[in-house]
C-alpha cells in the first residue's frame, strides 16, 4: 500500500473513531449522577424552571435522540451552548484552543531545547559522568510531578527571584507591555509542563543515538576521515531523529490533554480547565465539544507522525 492510500484509509477512519469517542464520553458523562440543570438552577427552583431549561438543551428527550441531535448539530458546525455559562461552545473553544496550543508549543520548544543536546551528549559520552548526569536529570524529570515542579518554580523564580510573573497567559492586560509581557507568563508553565517531555525525549534520543553510533556506516564515516562533529550531526543524528520526530508529533497532541494541573496552578484559561469545570458541573455540551476537538487533535497529530515516518525513512512503506 502506498502512503496516499494509507492516508486515505486513516482519514476515512476518523469519523468512526470520533463517533466512538464522543459516544463513549456521552454515555459516561450522562451515566454519572448529577443533573446539570439542577446544578445550575440551584435549590430554589420550580419544576417549571427545570423543565424549561431541560427543553432548551434537549435534556428532556431520550438519550439516543440527544446524541443524534448533538451529532446533527456538530455536522452543521454547531457545537451548542454551555448549560452553565450560556455561551456558545465554539466561542469558548476558539478562545481556549489558542491558549492551549500556545502553551503546548512553548512547552515543546523547551523540551526540544533541553532534550536534544542532552540525548546527544549522553550517547556520545556513554557511561561517563556526563551520561550519568544526563540520565540522572531524566530520571528526575520523569519522577517529579508537574504540579510539584510548578510550585517549586513559582517559589524560586516568581516569589524569591521575581524574574517571571505567575499568571498572565490569555490576558490582554498583563502589566509591563511589549513582547516580554506576552512571553514571560509562558516560561514557568512551559517548564513545568515540558520537563517530563525533556526526560522522555532525552532518553529516546540517547538510546536511538547509541543504536546508530554502533552502525557500520558510522564506522565507515569515521574511517573516511570525517570530523567527529560532522559524523554526529550529518550521519548519526539524522537517522537517530526518525523515531524522535514522530514521537514529538504524537506528544504535541498529548500535551493538549495533560495541561489541566498546570492550567489550574497558573490560572491559564486553556482547554483542560474548561473540561474539568464542565465535568464537575455536568455541562454536557462543553464536555462533548471539547472532547471532540481534543480527539481530532490526537488523530491529526498521529496521522502527521505516520506521514513523517515515511518522509524521514524511505524504507518505511504502508
Amino acid at each position, binding site marked *: 500500500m502506498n502512503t496516499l492510500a494509507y492516508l486515505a484509509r486513516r482519514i476515512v477512519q476518523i469519523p468512526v473513531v470520533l463517533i466512538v469517542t464522543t459516544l463513549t464520553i456521552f454515555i459516561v458523562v450522562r451515566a454519572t449522577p*448529577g443533573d446539570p440543570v439542577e446544578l*445550575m*438552577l440551584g435549590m430554589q427552583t420550580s419544576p417549571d424552571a427545570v423543565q424549561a431549561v431541560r427543553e432548551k438543551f434537549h435534556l428532556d428527550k431520550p438519550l439516543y435522540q440527544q446524541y443524534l441531535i448533538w451529532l446533527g448539530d456538530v455536522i452543521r458546525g454547531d457545537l451548542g451552548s454551555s448549560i452553565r455559562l450560556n*455561551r456558545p461552545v465554539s466561542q469558548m473553544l476558539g*478562545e481556549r484552543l489558542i491558549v492551549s496550543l500556545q502553551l503546548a508549543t512553548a512547552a515543546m520548544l523547551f523540551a526540544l531545547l533541553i532534550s536534544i543536546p542532552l540525548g546527544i551528549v549522553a550517547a556520545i559520552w556513554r557511561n561517563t559522568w556526563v551520561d550519568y548526569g544526563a540520565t540522572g536529570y531524566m530520571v528526575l524529570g520523569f519522577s517529579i510531578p508537574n504540579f510539584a515542579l510548578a510550585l517549586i518554580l513559582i517559589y524560586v523564580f516568581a*516569589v524569591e527571584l521575581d524574574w517571571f510573573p505567575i499568571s498572565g497567559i490569555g490576558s490582554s492586560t498583563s502589566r509591563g507591555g511589549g513582547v516580554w509581557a506576552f512571553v514571560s507568563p509562558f516560561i514557568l508553565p512551559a517548564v513545568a509542563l515540558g520537563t517530563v517531555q525533556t526526560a522522555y525525549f532525552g532518553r529516546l534520543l540517547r538510546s536511538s543515538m547509541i543504536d546508530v553510533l554502533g552502525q557500520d556506516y558510522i564506522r565507515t564515516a569515521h574511517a573516511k576521515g570525517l570530523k567527529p562533529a560532522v559524523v554526529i550531526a550529518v550521519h548519526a543524528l539524522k537517522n537517530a531523529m526518525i523515531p524522535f520526530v514522530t514521537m514529538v508529533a504524537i506528544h504535541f497532541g498529548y500535551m493538549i490533554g495533560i495541561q489541566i494541573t498546570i492550567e*489550574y496552578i497558573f490560572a491559564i484559561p486553556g482547554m483542560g480547565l474548561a473540561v474539568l469545570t464542565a465535568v464537575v458541573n455536568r455541562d454536557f455540551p462543553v464536555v462533548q465539544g471539547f472532547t471532540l476537538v481534543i480527539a481530532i487533535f490526537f488523530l491529526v497529530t498521529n496521522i502527521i507522525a505516520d506521514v513523517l515516518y515515511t518522509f524521514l525513512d524511505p524504507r518505511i512503506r504502508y
Partner: protein
Amino acid sequence: MATNESKLSTARVSRRAFNKGVASATGAGLALGSGIAPAFAQGKRELIYGMWGGAVGNLSPVIRHDNQAGILIYNIFDGLVRPNYAKGTIEPWMAEGWTNPDPLTWRVKIREGVKWQKGYGELTAADVAYTFQVHFDTKSWQVNTSYPQVESFKTDGKYVFEVKLKQPFGAFPGITIGYGGMIIPESAHREMGNDTFSLNPVGNGPYMLESVIGSEVILAKNPDYWRPGLPHMDRVVVRSFPDASVRLQSLLKGEVDFLTHPDNKDVPEVAANPDFVTHSTPGWNWDYQHFNLSANQDMAYHDKLVRQAISYAIDREAIKNEIYHGQATETDNSIPPGFLGHRESLLKYPKNGDLAKAKELMAQAGVAGYEVEVMCSDKDWLRRELELVAAMVSQIGINYKIRNLDIGTFNNLWINNHEDFQQMLEDITIVAPDPHATVFWFLHSEGSVSSGYSNSEVDELLENAMATSDPATRAGYYHKVVDQTLEDCSLIYHVNANFTRVHSKGLEGFEPAPQEYIERMDEIRWKA
C-alpha cells in the same frame, strides 16, 4: 452591623507560609512574600481584580448565574433597591421609594433620568414590567424565589410600577424588588434575544461589559452613570484564579490589585502585611447539619433530644479555628448578623459545646449510640469539617459514617430530598437580603428546601412574619421561630464563614458586602 472589617497591623510578612504550602497538592500555602504594592498602578484609573473560580459566563440578570457572574452583574446593573449592610436596611436605589397602600398592593416609584448603557434610552417602569414578564415567560428561577407571591403587575405612567400580590408579603422590598429587582432594558433585550443579551448585557450600573475572553472579563466605565463622578475606575479587569494561594501570590507580586477568597490559613499573615488591607467580613451563610426528617423513620435522630445532644456535642469554636483558621463566627441559629431579626450568633448552645449536657440528653432519649451515614460534597473544607464533627459526636456514642460525593450527586440527593440519604453537612450562601429567605425556605413545612421538618407553630409564626410589613413586628416573629428551632434542632448550625478580600493599601472606598456575589466597585479608587 453586617461587616467586621479588620484593617491590620504593621508587621512584615514572611515567606514561611509558602514553604509549608509547597507540600500541598494544590499549592495551598503559597507564599506570602514580601508585600510589593503595585506602585506602577498608583494614579491609574484601572483595577485588576483577582476572582476565585474559572470561566464566567451568563451575565444576564434574567438567567440563573453563578456567584462569579453575580459579581460582574452587580457592577453592570443597579437594582431597584440596595441593602445597607451597616444599617441592616433595604434602601432605595433605582426605586426611589415604595408604598403599600393596601396589604396586597405595592407601588414602586422608579428613579427618573437613569440611562441604559450604550444608548438604549432611559430606565422606566416599562422596563421593570418587561423584566418581570421575562422571568415569568421563561419560567426563570426567580419565579420561585422572588416572585411566588406576585399575582399581577402593571405600570402606572412612565415611572410607577405596581405589583398586586396573592397574599401579604412583608419581605417585598428585600426579596421581590431586592433579590428579584435587577432590571433589564426592554429595547436591548428584545433586539438581542435572551441568549445574546446574556453575552452582551446592557445595564444601568457603573460599569459596562467590554469583553469576555477565556477567564478574563473587562469592564469599562459607564460614562452615563446616574451617580455623578462615579465610578472612579476607567476600567476593571477581572481575572479568575482557580487556586487561592496563587491568587494571593499574584496580589503580593502586584499582578492584581484586589482579590477575594484567599485561603483562610493565609489570612492572618497577609493581614499583618502593611502594604495590603484585609477585610474579613462575616458572611451571609451557614455551615450546618441537615437531618433527612422526611425519611428513615427508624433513625434515632428523629428524636429532638438526640439532635439537641448533637448540637451540645459540637465545639463550634474548634470548627472556626481548625477549619476556618479563625475566619468565621460561631452560630447556632439561622439569622446571621446584618439581617432583620438577628440577635446574637450564639443564643443557646455554648461555643465550646457541653459534653455533659449532651450525654445527659442522650440518656434522657434512651439512646446509647447509633451509626448514621452523613454525606457531604467535594468541598475540601466541608470534608475536613465533617471529620472533625464526627470526632465530636463520637464522644456521645454516635458514629458518623462519612460519605463524600461529588457536588452533582450530592445536590441531586439533597435538593430532591431523596430517601436514600440520612444526614448531611453543607454550607449555604444566602442570596436574598431578608430573613424570609434564610428561614421560611428551610424551616416551613412547605419550604422549598425543607428537611422534612414540620412544626405547626413555626409554620404559623413564619406565615405571620410573611404577612407583616412592620420590621419590628417581623423581627419579633423571627425571634420566636429561632427560639423554637433552637429547641427542635431540625438543622444544626455551626458557623457563619467570613468572606475575605485583600487589596493594595493604595486603594480606598471599598465597602465589603456579606454576600458572596456582591463586590461593589463603584466607589473604589486609587488614593491620590
